[in-house]
């Protein structure tokens, strides 16, 4: 077969261009750390990368929600602890006032302490989180109580989704938790002040029921809080797994890329050398 300068040159240029394209591709891999930068690099991998990035964004959203729920429930837990403490203080004062040996001044001091517990609880139940009342149910812009008798919230509590199929309650029906506690504390204080032992007994019994209600509510919050840690841990694991799958599809294997870069550089050198040699070996050179 006749070999012409043109075909040798064209072939050399073709191989050199191919090698240069490989060098560019590998350089991009090494520089960016990515083996897939556009869909045509690997369409299947690109679909998987988009899917994993969407999953990670989804998980990030869940992680953010879980963090928010944790903060919110910690506040709720703290408020309920305060209320339980105040009920306990009121019970102690109520029991102390359930006797005929106290002076009027002593009874008045106990009654005032019980009223103080009531006011502290009233203040606690009006706690806000991110400018929204936690214990007003769906009426989060309205304080659940103002005077301790009327509940201004509703029973429509909100929940947040913190992972697929898992929701956690984030607002609470203050009316259901508090019930008649404020009225009971007012009654108890009045009875202690008046030395009305029968009413004190009745009020203490009602207070016990209220204590149980608040404790049950706090237990639910505690359970949610403890499960949140598991949820957050699971979300972290899911995110890591998703990121690993993304990296498998998207990120370059540096050892392979650098090795490939060296190989393609060698191929480009060889193609250019071939062109150079083909240009040198001419009969004309031997006829000088």
């Amino acid at each position: 077969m006749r070999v012409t300068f043109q075909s040798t040159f064209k072939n050399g240029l073709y191989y050199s261009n191919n090698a240069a394209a490989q060098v560019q591709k590998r350089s991009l891999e090494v520089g960016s750390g990515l083996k897939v930068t556009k869909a045509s690099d690997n369409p299947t991998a690109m679909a998987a990368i988009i899917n994993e990035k969407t999953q990670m964004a989804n998980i990030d959203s869940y992680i953010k929600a879980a963090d928010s729920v944790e903060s919110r429930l910690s506040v709720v837990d703290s408020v309920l602890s305060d209320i339980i403490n105040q009920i306990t203080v009121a019970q102690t004062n109520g029991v102390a006032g359930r006797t005929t040996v106290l002076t009027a001044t002593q009874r008045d001091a106990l009654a005032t302490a019980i009223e103080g517990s009531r006011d502290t609880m009233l203040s606690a139940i009006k706690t806000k989180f991110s400018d929204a009342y936690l214990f007003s149910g769906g009426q989060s812009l309205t304080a659940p109580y103002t005077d301790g008798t009327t509940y201004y919230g509703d029973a429509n509590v909100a929940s947040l989704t913190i992972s697929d199929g898992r929701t956690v309650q984030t607002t609470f029906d203050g009316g259901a938790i508090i019930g008649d506690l404020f009225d009971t504390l007012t009654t108890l204080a009045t009875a202690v002040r008046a030395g009305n032992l029968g009413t004190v007994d009745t009020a203490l019994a009602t207070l016990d029921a209220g204590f149980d209600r608040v404790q049950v509510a706090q237990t639910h919050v505690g359970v949610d809080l403890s499960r949140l840690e598991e949820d957050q841990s699971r979300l972290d694991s899911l995110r890591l797994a998703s990121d690993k799958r993304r990296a498998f599809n998207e990120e370059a294997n540096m050892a392979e890329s650098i090795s490939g870069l060296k190989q393609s550089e060698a191929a480009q050198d060889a193609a250019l050398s071939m062109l150079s040699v083909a240009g040198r070996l001419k009969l004309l050179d031997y006829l000088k």
Partner: protein
Amino acid sequence: VSGLFGLLGQTSNTLAAQSYGLDVTGQNLANINTAGYSRRVVTFGAVPPADSSVSAGGGVEVLYVTAIRNAIYDRRLFQELPHSGRENAIVDALSVVEASLGTSGGSIDKSLANFFDAWATLADNPTSPVARATVLSQAQALATDFNNMAARLDTSAQDTDRQIRTSVDTINSLTTQIASINAKLASVSEGGKATLKDQQTELIKQLAGLATVQVVEQNDGTVQISMEKGQALVIGENAYALGITDEPLTGKALITSGGQDITSQITAGAIGGLLNVRDTLIPSYKTQLDELAYGIVTQVNTLHDAGYTLAGVDAPNFFTPLGAAAGAASLMSVNAAVAADTTLIAAAGVAASPGDNTTATSLAALRNALTMNGGKATFADSWGKLVSGVGQDSKTAQAELTSRTEVITQIDNLRDSVSGVNLDEETANMMKFQTGYEANARFFTTVNQLLDTLMGLGA
């Protein structure tokens, strides 16, 4: 004496023949880098004796100069070039489309994630003005991204359309040149004919890169060229131009021949590839984008419409409602009323309960809902399918182009092996003719000396 004088004349002709050989070699060397040039070979013939005397012969004469070419290789190139032209056009056009889709995690997929994140944040704080403003701004960003993406696809289609128009102009220019060569072929010398044939072949190669053509070579060296389905492009000295008309509704270029629309008949060559991109691929991407936008608008509006505003009343549509999927990506926008007043954004699913977040939660959950492709795919899945589809089309075209380029390179090499100028060969020819010239010049000198000797005898 008359014999010696005859030899002088005969040698003079021989020197001219060797000189002509050098001339041909020079022509070959001069055109070593001329595309489509076929090397010339000079053929000498011995001149027989003038009569039946004892003469050895009449020396040498140039019989003819041949342009060396193999028509099979040219025909194979004419057949292959439309395919590589098509794939090359698709690769070029799709590389622009692919770039306009953006990077993974940095395009519409990111806007979608931000949009649903904003709803999740609103679900966390249903009454927060900041969360509401974030929902609005992310929705506007999403709508703008869809608008821009649709515009970029439209621009790609328009660019492709412009390329089609330019390519048709190029075809018309090429056919005019080929017809002109046909006209000249009838009146030029053999040497001139070879040059015109080289030019003719190059022009047909360019033509074949633009569209599939049928080439019929006539005995006189002229060619008749027609489109794949027989519409004439060149007959003899006449070129028949392709026309362009604008499609009434879309303004797209329609290719005509003799007033007939032949657009759908052109499937190969650069024009075939560009038509495929303009009329099939880009519209298919646009349809997918529209369906995605329509799905988002419809699903979000359905849920939002069932919710309640911060004031506790029925919520309006979140996005401006769309009548159909067609054009949805271009038309997607946030309802002007909602954009003007973020309290109209529905987070609550219960009337007069501003702290309720069921609607916001449902809207945030749309991210994972199988709402597309007949309930089989999420919005992000649909976007991924669109992006990977473009990538697959581009990759397929690239693979096909690589394969076609290999074939063309091989055919080109074969053609070069027959028609190409070999520098060593031409150098050898140069020496051959130089040596031949020198030997004959020496012979001329010898004859001249013999004549001198003969003339000296009488002195």
